[in-house]
């Protein structure tokens, strides 16, 4: 799992429970690893590009903390670039599915 | 109109018309308004309603999108059972993309069929086209009711899919449906593109592709309206599709010559050469470009029309005569003169 992917997961997970957070991260990690290679490469490429952009913003003091990253991801999700929208949506889907499924199994 | 000689029922007291403010719709609604108790009309925009409502107190209007479930609900609200539905709403030349063709021509038709069924409509007359059948192989070939589907581009595919929904509704026992296949119209209430056609011919600027012997069936609006009304009442009609056109197809060079005569007869100055020859290759190129653009979801009206001018698109109305009791009353010159007069009376410059 690339560094930016880990940051994205951390920003998107709603729960504060460290067990939940690490379980979600493990699921996302496993999912990314298990993707078809060409899709994994595409996602990785985007992670590097978007991660670089995010790092630059952070260096300029324009991206401070998880909340700011989450807001940035949301704006990308509604933005004009199709592949960026899909990237955010794909990462969000993985996190949302895992977090909600884990909540159910915990409650059970 | 000649007395019907085919078994037929009585026309419904209430008619529902979509595409009411379109070229065909305006003609149809005016005819229906004279003899029906109520004519419920769907127009696309609110400002299209008042001109129709002025025509007759029997006309009621609903403004909205034929793709919209709530609009079609309102269209049928209070109509009651046993109405006759005339579905003319369609997109021929889309403004934005090929997608519009399917959304309106198929999606709108599906909604109309569904609501007509739920409302217990007595008959559903669907306005179809030659486009699902493509072009004739040669100038002497004509489409009949046995001709197979061979859709011409996006519009053709969308009208084919619509016809199939209309037929399926009948075959499943939902509705008594009839499709009326109309070719190139001419007649009053024509849109600006038709006025441009007249202007081009008057100035001798209309391109005649090849030698002009390719044939086109055309239908004068009053003839088509008569065909739709016959489809509404004829006992044999349900479940079938009929070609409705003028008595015979016309050679393209004959159409040009006739229109020029009609323009002169109505007092307009006609200039330029009778024809501007355009090689078939140019029309072929336009057709290919049309196909490429549509493959990308885009549409160019001029390319599409130019591409079609290369071909024979002609049909045989024998079945409509025999089973609907349809008899075209108006011929090309008379019909063109009536169209030109209408334009002049309505301040259209030709």
């Amino acid at each position: 799992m690339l560094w930016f992917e880990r940051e994205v997961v951390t920003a998107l997970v709603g729960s504060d429970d460290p067990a939940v957070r690490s379980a979600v991260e493990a699921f996302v990690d496993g999912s990314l690893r298990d993707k078809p290679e060409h899709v994994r490469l595409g996602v990785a490429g985007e992670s590097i590009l978007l991660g670089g952009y995010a790092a630059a913003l952070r260096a300029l003091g324009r991206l401070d903390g998880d909340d700011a990253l989450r807001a940035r991801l949301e704006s990308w999700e509604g933005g004009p670039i199709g592949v960026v929208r899909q990237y955010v949506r794909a990462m969000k889907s993985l996190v949302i599915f895992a977090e909600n499924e884990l909540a159910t199994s915990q409650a059970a | 109109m000649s007395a019907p000689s085919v078994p037929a029922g009585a026309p419904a007291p209430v008619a529902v018309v979509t595409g009411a403010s379109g070229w065909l719709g305006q003609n149809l609604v005016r005819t229906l308004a004279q003899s029906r108790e109520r004519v419920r009309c769907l127009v696309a925009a609110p400002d299209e309603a008042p001109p129709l409502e002025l025509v007759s107190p029997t006309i009621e209007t609903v403004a909205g999108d034929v793709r919209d479930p709530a609009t079609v609900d309102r269209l049928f609200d209070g109509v009651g059972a046993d109405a006759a539905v005339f579905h003319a709403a369609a997109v021929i030349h889309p403004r934005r993309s090929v997608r519009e063709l399917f959304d309106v021509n198929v999606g709108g038709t599906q909604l109309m069929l569904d609501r007509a069924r739920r409302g217990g409509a007595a008959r559903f007359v669907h306005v179809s086209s030659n486009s699902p059948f493509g072009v004739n192989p040669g100038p002497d070939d004509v489409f009949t009711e046995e001709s197979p589907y061979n859709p011409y581009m996006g519009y053709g595919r969308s009208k084919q899919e619509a016809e199939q929904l209309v037929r399926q509704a009948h075959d499943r026992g939902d509705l008594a449906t009839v499709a009326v296949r109309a070719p190139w119209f001419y007649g009053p209430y024509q849109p600006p593109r038709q006025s441009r056609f007249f202007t081009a011919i008057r100035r001798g600027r209309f391109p005649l592709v090849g030698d002009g012997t390719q044939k086109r069936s055309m239908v004068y609006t009053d003839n088509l309206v008569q065909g739709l009304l016959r489809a509404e009442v004829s006992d044999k009609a349900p479940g079938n599709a009929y070609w409705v056109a003028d008595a015979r197809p016309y050679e393209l060079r004959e159409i040009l010559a006739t229109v020029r005569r009609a323009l002169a007869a109505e007092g307009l100055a006609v200039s330029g050469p009778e024809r501007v020859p355009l090689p078939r290759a140019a029309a072929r190129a336009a057709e290919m470009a049309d196909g490429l653009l549509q493959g990308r979801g885009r549409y160019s009206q001029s390319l599409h029309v130019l591409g079609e001018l290369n071909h024979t698109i002609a049909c045989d109305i024998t079945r409509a005569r025999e089973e609907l009791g349809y008899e075209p009353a108006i011929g090309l010159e008379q019909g063109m003169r009536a169209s030109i007069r209408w334009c002049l009376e309505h301040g259209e410059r030709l």
Partner: protein
Amino acid sequence: MGTLDTEILVIGSGAGGSITAARLADAGRQVTVVEEGPWVDAGAHEPFSLEEMVAKYRHHGASLALGNPNIAYAEGRCVGGSTEVNSGLYHRLPESLVADWGARYAIDGFTPAELGRHADRVERELGVSTLPGAPPPSSAMLERGATKLGWRHVEFARVFRYDAAGRGTKQTMSRTMLPRALRTGARIVADCRVQRLVRDGDRVVGARVRRRHADGAVERLVIRADHVFVCAGAVETPALLQRSGIRRNAGNGLKMHPTVKIAGRFPHPIDHGDVPMHRITEFAPSLTIGGSASRRGHIAMALADTGLPFDEALADWENISVYYAAIRSDGSGRVLAVPGLASPVVTYKLTEGDLSRLARGIVHLGELLLAAGATELHPSIQGGPVVRRVDELGAWWDALTRSRANLMTVHLTSTVRMGEDRQRTGADSFGRVWGHRNLRVNDASLLPDAPGVNPQAAIMAIAARNCDEFLAS
């Protein structure tokens, strides 16, 4: 390199492969089934749960057909294949399609009577049944909406057997056909991926495989066989054929049922277990409407699809269920094995008519759910809008575009079509791969088109029919 000898090698243990193994072993033939995925106990995980995604699916359930837009799909990857993870819905191939396909692709002996015979036997052996009692609310909503609108609807049967207490068990391949095959002498080797087939002219002599053992060790083997049946599914079958140098009509013409979804919020709690068994058939064959897996994770994903805020709706998740509209597509796709990549590249091209059909589907689905009493509809369209009233549905026509539609499918077919028309098929009327004497395909790849209903019934009937012909020849 080790070798293993067998008379008949069956590659893949899904619906097609399991029927093949059971029929041939039952006839006394020596059968070895290799399955890329693991043996997972059928009851080990809750259906559609996260654990099941990890254990029984390829790519954690997140496969992707590239296109404009991309279409997400899922494939089972375990002993029993996709039958272990599907809804269990069962519907015979419609007779009109049997006639249509038989004529168009020149498939010998392809008649409703023929297929019906095989379907009868499969159904007796598996146990196909509608619900013994009242449908769960998630399914009843479909019935309620359809009744209000006067739309045709039907309850589909499923491959389920019920005990005296009315508890149902899905009759997957690992519970039915595979144990049957084992009892009559077949061998099943799990965790064993076929790299490629070994050919000698027009004969296939065997397969190179990599088998993973429990301790993690990977063993390379050659399995030698007199006959090979490739039953790896509509994606992996053509990929394997291509990797083995067989390319003619192997991988093109992929068909699927592109699908849009709506998460519908009701003013009352709704169940989250079984996938609804009711189907709206009013708009068949171009459109079908039904229900989807609606565990909390699926509901959350569906709500998130619009990209609009959904926390308030998610808090109410117990009142929400996910429904779908699936279309018959005029478009098609392609499976391409790329040297060096383990996974093939899958692409799919939708036509403008397809996009319009999807928009029509989501509008009709919306009408249905509102008629059933839903108060809020969250569509699988980026940007929404969320709809609460009938007069808001019309906005979805323009909202559903290539760049905003979130599409998926679960049924893939037609990549090695069957029939005598060699221009358009990759195998003959009985699945014999053209140009080869002892190589057959016997899975979803053979179906000439997507059937508009869940394909497992068609796959099993066709596979059984093809086995009969093999045994007779």
